[in-house]
């Protein structure tokens, strides 16, 4: 494949222009500014302009810097996955479930661990939905069980087994100290320990979730900011149908 070298763009192709802002644990003054310049040089920049500096606390100085980044990136080598979603609408989704699965899909959702944020999972599951897109509870062919927030992994798995869920929807909002990774992993390990990982479609979501990250953690798919319910429903139904070997359902 042809190389496709890129650099940041300010007002001229490949000028490399980047804005940075950070604090160094040093008192303000010319030496601090110099330190900022030298530090940014270590980050592979040239033409470093320390536009603004201010001592914002005893012994801490804040900087706004513009500089030109040196590295190039070969964009032709960059790959990123997105959950394979053939976007279907509300009616088509219900119809597909009805025709090909013959019973409502059972979906259990929760925000796990100590995470108390429900707005994200609610956006996907509640009747009302998100951004003018109905939530899963509104789908006649989906039985949506929203367990809310601060749900322990055992609790979630127990419920999933109890209702013979087709899919688990797991939300994580708090990411401080990477707690979301720990929580996601805990759930996978629990499912694997109980040898029931493969029973469910596992879907992760939250403001810092990408499909790549979710797949890396062992989930089937991941959805980030701005996701609407029909995307998730489309993903679930098309994936389950594909697994059943049903094809040709997309016009």
């Amino acid at each position: 494949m042809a190389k496709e070298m890129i650099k940041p763009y300010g007002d001229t192709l490949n000028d490399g222009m980047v804005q940075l802002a950070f604090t160094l644990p040093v008192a303000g003054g010319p030496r601090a500014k110099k330190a900022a310049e030298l530090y940014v040089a270590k980050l592979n920049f040239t033409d470093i302009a320390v536009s603004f500096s201010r001592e914002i606390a005893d012994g801490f100085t804040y900087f706004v810097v513009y500089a030109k980044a040196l590295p190039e990136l070969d964009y032709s080598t960059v790959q990123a996955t997105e959950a394979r979603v053939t976007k279907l609408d509300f009616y088509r989704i219900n119809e597909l479930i009805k025709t090909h699965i013959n019973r409502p899909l059972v979906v259990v959702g929760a925000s796990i661990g100590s995470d108390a944020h429900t707005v994200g999972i609610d956006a996907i599951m509640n009747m009302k939905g998100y951004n003018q897109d109905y939530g899963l509870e509104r789908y006649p062919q989906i039985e949506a069980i929203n367990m809310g927030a601060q749900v322990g992994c055992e609790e979630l798995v127990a419920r999933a087994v109890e209702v013979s869920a087709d899919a688990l929807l797991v939300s994580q909002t708090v990411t401080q100290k990477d707690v979301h990774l720990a929580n996601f992993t805990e759930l996978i390990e629990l499912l694997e320990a109980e040898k029931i990982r493969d029973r469910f479609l596992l879907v992760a979501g939250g403001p810092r979730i990408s499909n790549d990250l979710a797949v890396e953690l062992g989930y089937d798919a991941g959805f980030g900011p701005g996701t609407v319910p029909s995307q998730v429903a489309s993903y679930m139904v098309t994936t389950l149908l594909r697994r059943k070997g049903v094809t040709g359902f997309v016009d």
Partner: protein
Amino acid sequence: MAHIELDEKKINRLKSLARQVAEQVQEMIADYSTVSVERAVLRLYGVDGVDGDGTPLVNRLVELLQAKEMLSAGISRYFALAMLTSGRDAQTTALQLVNGDIEFAEQGRFPPEEISAKEQDLALSAVAALDATRQRKAEKQKRYPLGPQPWKYVIVATGNIYEDRTQARAVARSGADIIAVIRSTAQSLLDYIPYGATTEGFGGTFATQENFRIMRAALDEECAATGRYLRLVNYASGLCMAEIAVCAALEDLDMLLNDSMYGILFRDINIKRTFVDQHFSRLICGRAKIIINTGEDNYLTTSDAVENAHTVTASQLINEALGRFSLLTDDLLGLGHAFEIDPTMKNGFLYELAHAQLTRQLFPEAPLKYMPPTKYKSTDIFFSHCQDTMFNLASIATNQGIHLAGMLTEAIHTPLMHDRYQSISAINYVFDTARDLGSEIEFKKDGIVAGRARQVMAETEAFLEEVRVEGLMQAIAAGKFAGIKRREEGGKGLDGVFKKAPNYSNPILARLEKEGVING
């Protein structure tokens, strides 16, 4: 000050409806006490510290009494007797009780009058401690004057009290008036107060008496350095509401998050538990002159800020009415509200002005707590900074009291040191450049702003009417607040609630209620 023409009669009607709602609650409160109230009494009597497992002695003592099924009379009398028995101070007595050296007993070798006298002694010095903190703070505020309202309120939330201290000092220098140490997540669900200095919090730092002390000491130094008084805030809401109020009072805190319904709705804490704890905690706040901050902003993180504006107003009115029963004066009512309308809504800012101005006019003397945009904050920090700028303007134009600093990284992470710097710079700019905007403008009589304010009032009236008819607890059970349903007999901490026996004794409560509002 900016002004909207509102019907005085309608305002009075709202206040009277809220009073009636609160009255029903207050009747219930009179009949109950909780483990947290009893532990708070012990703390005020001088019991502190933890056992080998880190369980606070006050918890151990209450459990001992509970095990003996003697708690319904309150712990005061038994503890006074135990002190007479040990002949030692409260702390030593507590240790002896926990170690089994002595035991709680119905009757010892001391006559009831002597026990009562001991109780009164203890209560007297407990209340004296509350008076002392009030006076110390007044002193400090004389030396280091308070800035003008809106006061700039900034959070620190590293999880480590020592890092928090560094951050607090930084932001004090850039001009903040108030520092809030955000509590480690879900501490409100702990049925005890952790002990000592802590360095491992989660999304925040544990509220402990020692952490309060460390931070207050640092801020006292900053007062001296900056010549301005710096207020310290923490959170009372939760299962230990009353006890945290005690710790806060003892360590000269200035404000506490203390809402009558937050715990019920957002933490599923039992209704009775919350109301009973709340009353005692507020009596303490009132005496120690701790401003309460209520949590109406929380409604708008889950519900729509336009659709549900009236629930915010209703909750403010109920918080005020309940606050009155707990002897809180206007200057201590940091009633909450928030700037949470979708930024893409046409004329959303006019609606924000209407909501903020309505709150201002309904509670003209209260230091209103105004929360910045959070839910619709963009991860584009530059755009987010604009949103905060408009919030800052709404705040100064409508003359709010306690201004929570919006953070440009709200949608990304808990604030970094320079996020706070940016926030304070932006606030200082807007507050100065538009300082008297509020007194310059009038809203058109039949404009969008005035119309919206009147509409919210009308919706609030209808809503409170319903709540009054059903009763507050039934209304909560029916999900009328924030769409969350909580049953009277459900929720956490119910097992810590008990009906007062006829011989129930809590001389601190009695004294605070009887002495009424004390200033100076």
